[in-house]
């Protein structure tokens, strides 16, 4: 075995293309034997939302926010040429035809490879996203946890 190193990714964006780039890097790093931590904050939290509507108690603004943001990896839009969602539909089709793994598949694979996924509790609070609305297997923490991991890592990306 070569040397294990550590990598961290801050997943800030909730765009499909950026989320895919992040998860491809995370899967690749884990497949090279690295320890990987992904820290999900702001729009990036939407990647981790369950696709179904989860009944949780929310304030008016929180509920509005929740309704306007995409519910999960299967509903994200593109950062460019989204055309109200049509771009993302076309991109998904192209990627399917070319047998590129889908974002939900990449997330499952990352989990299986032991990639640590951390949801930012402050962003969750701001955006009114509750733990029950997010997929299983996450850790919940703040910026200090991320910085602690980043100190030990050789690569830290902001996506």
């Amino acid at each position: 075995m070569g040397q294990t190193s550590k990598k961290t990714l801050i997943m800030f964006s909730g765009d499909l293309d950026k989320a895919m780039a992040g998860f491809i890097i995370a899967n690749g790093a884990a497949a090279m034997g690295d320890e990987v931590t992904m820290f999900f904050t702001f729009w990036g939290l939407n990647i981790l939302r369950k696709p179904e509507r989860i009944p949780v108690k929310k304030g008016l603004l929180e509920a509005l926010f929740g309704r306007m943001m995409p519910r999960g990896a299967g509903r994200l839009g593109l950062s460019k040429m989204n055309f109200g969602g049509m771009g993302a539909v076309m991109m998904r089709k192209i990627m399917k035809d070319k047998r590129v793994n889908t974002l939900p598949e990449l997330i499952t694979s990352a989990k299986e490879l032991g990639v640590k996924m951390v949801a930012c509790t402050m962003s969750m609070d701001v955006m009114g996203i509750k733990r029950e609305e997010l997929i299983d297997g996450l850790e919940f923490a703040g910026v200090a946890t991320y910085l602690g991991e980043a100190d030990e890592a050789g690569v830290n990306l902001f996506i």
Partner: protein
Amino acid sequence: MAEYEINARGMQCPGPIVKLFSQYKLAAPGDLIRIEVTDQGFKKDILAWCKKTGCELVELTENNSVITALIKKN
């Protein structure tokens, strides 16, 4: 010494190395893994992967766009 075969034809990046790594984890030192890939980036990627994991790249061939790598776990 066991020898394993992986068919990763048609898989896109990072599929082949993810599949390879799963087999690598199960293999014992000295075992051989043969993997077939059609993703052209794999030719370079396998060098970096072997360097990182400390594996030996015994053989790397290409035939009709199918890249075959034979790897020995150290």
